[in-house]
């Protein structure tokens, strides 16, 4: 076991993928000499050369569009979008091309592209640097969307995403980049499929369904609740598309209560889909409606007030109270 930050775990995962498969390429803005603004690709250009770790011109659509061409010719591009808020210029290429090439080809042409996107708030940043745009991609057929919450998952999931023959939008919870955790670099392979949810803390009174940066928040909330005698189960979804219905529904059937927690805007956020599925599949098992603790329906606000915008321990526990007292 090695202790690594999530950023370093991602770096290690990328390095392993580059070393294992010569067709793997990285591309993005400032990922070469600089190693990316979060240093996730640090040292990789020096190690694998400029043909495999490519500093791209400043144009996200160009980055994704050329990645499509590379993937069509057998390469496995892993592209970095510098910040969540800068993925939109590439939206057309992602939604109308990356996600559809396989369908357009009658199911014959794989499109093994990984789009790495540091996402989420809580880092005191200016506009466009704290967004949670995952729902746009989870609504798009043909894409898969995943997000790790721990260094170990980051290390394995990035490798699994690169190995996948379907396009994967890989959201990295940037405010957890410097969180440390144990990673077993010697392990042969991941212990969980890329698209499986994980019960990160078992519990019996209610289920917290969450992902990415909010997993830590929910775990902390569950610890606190424990002290008050409340047993909360925390499910780290890991995959937002597809959703791991089996794990989600099994947990909620058991606890009878569900609270979805995410940073993204509430309306049509992942919580909406999860609530819709749960109420449909667990109609008689639910003791309370599925509640959602999410960002408000606002553009991400200035950083001095972001703490009020972001779900925190108290808001999660408040929802638990409401659910339990239904």
């Amino acid at each position, binding site marked *: 076991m090695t202790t690594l930050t999530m950023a370093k775990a991602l770096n290690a995962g990328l390095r392993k993928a580059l070393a294992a498969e010569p067709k793997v390429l990285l591309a993005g803005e400032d990922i070469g000499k600089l190693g990316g603004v979060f240093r996730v690709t640090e040292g990789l250009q020096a190690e694998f050369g400029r043909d495999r770790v490519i500093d791209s011109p400043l144009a996200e*659509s160009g980055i994704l569009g050329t990645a499509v*061409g590379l993937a069509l010719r057998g390469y496995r591009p892993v592209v970095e979008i510098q910040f969540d808020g800068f993925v939109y210029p590439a939206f057309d290429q992602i939604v109308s091309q990356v996600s559809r090439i396989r369908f357009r080809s009658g199911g014959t042409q794989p499109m093994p592209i990984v789009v790495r996107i540091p996402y989420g708030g809580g880092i005191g940043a200016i506009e466009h640097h704290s967004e949670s745009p995952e729902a746009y991609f989870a609504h798009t057929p043909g894409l898969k969307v995943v997000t790790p919450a721990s260094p170990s998952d980051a290390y394995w999931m990035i490798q699994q995403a690169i190995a996948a023959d379907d396009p994967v939008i890989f959201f990295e919870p940037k405010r957890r980049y410097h969180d440390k955790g144990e990673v077993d670099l010697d392990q042969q392979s991941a212990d969980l499929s890329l698209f499986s949810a994980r019960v990160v803390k078992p519990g019996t009174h209610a289920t917290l369904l969450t992902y990415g940066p909010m997993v830590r928040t929910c775990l902390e909330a569950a610890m606190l609740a424990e002290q008050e005698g409340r047993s909360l189960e925390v499910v780290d979804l890991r995959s937002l598309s597809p959703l791991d219905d089996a794990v989600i529904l099994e947990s909620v059937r058991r606890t009878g209560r569900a609270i979805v927690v995410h940073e993204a805007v509430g309306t049509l956020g992942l919580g909406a889909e999860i609530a819709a599925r749960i109420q449909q599949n667990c109609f008689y098992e639910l003791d309370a409606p599925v509640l959602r603790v999410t960002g408000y329906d606002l553009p991400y606000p200035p950083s001095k007030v972001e703490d009020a915008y972001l779900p925190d321990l108290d808001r999660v526990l408040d929802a638990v109270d409401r659910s339990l007292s239904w």
Partner: protein
Amino acid sequence: MTEPMPGPDFVQLLDPQGNRVEHPDFSYSGTDADLAADLRDMILARRIDTEATALQRKGELGLWAPLLGQEASQIGSARAVRDPDLIVPSYREHGVAWCAGIDPVDLLTTFRGTGMTDWPSRPENFHFYSFVIGTQTLHAVGMAMAQQRDGVVGNSEPEANGATIVYFGDGATSQGDVNEAFIFAASFAAPVVFFCQNNQYAISEPMVLQSKIPLYRRAAGFGFPGIRVDGNDVIAVRAVTQWAMERARRGEGPVLIEAYTYRMGAHTTSDDPTKYRASTEEDSWRAKDPIERLKSYLLRVGAIDTAWLDALASESDALAERLRAGCLALPVPTFESFFGQVYVDTPELLLRQRDEQLAYEASFEGAR
């Protein structure tokens, strides 16, 4: 914008009257027999096109995008392609597809609505049709970057080298993606030839709305050569494309070719050009028909004769007949088949949706 004149800024090797003309930088190196083959391709491509248009009129296709008038641009450029070159079409490149060896019946699937654009006869070096304007230019640059990494660019063995040619229209030049493609291609010296068929219109919008100056000049601002060729002159188009592809294969980077031509028909079968252009304009371009000029040249030099043309007419009729029959015989896939075509690794949800859909359909078995 005034009409381009033959000269250094407008490569023409065969004038509208069918006379061979000289150009300081380009010349034709092939034989008249090769040109007869080009004429055959152009006539067959046009026949495919008019037959597909007719099929649409009869309600057999939902839509068709005719190439009428652009045969020389397409055949001339496609015949400058050879292995391991790659071809990235837009949606009107039926003549290019023909040269790439695609069964014209396959082209109809998209337009008949029986499938997407993965045609059974599609060779590996021919990309799908693209319908979102300009997006494919970036794919082409990516493919050219792949060629660089595959080591098939700039080798001492010229025959082993390859490049990518990508097709798009005059309207497409306004899209951000096309300009980003220019930037990426220039930045990485990617072996890509940007082949712009300036057919004077983007649906109803005249070329001048997209650019006040000739389109080929766009390239210089990005740091690579642009050149304008008479797009109705198959000889010039082939010569210019050969030059550009050869240059790209050698590793000298991209070229923009503006093939100055005219869409003689409608934008698509849904379009009504009388709404936005004068019939006198159409007439003036009819006088520059790419097929007529080559035909009159080849007849004059005796490379072909009426018998040759008659034989071609029969071949053409047979092709049209085959196209018609092939169209009607196109299988309609089951809806269920699509659920497995979205992902390599199909998620549970889709399998469940497919099963529900099947069960639901089955519930009507008795009733229907």
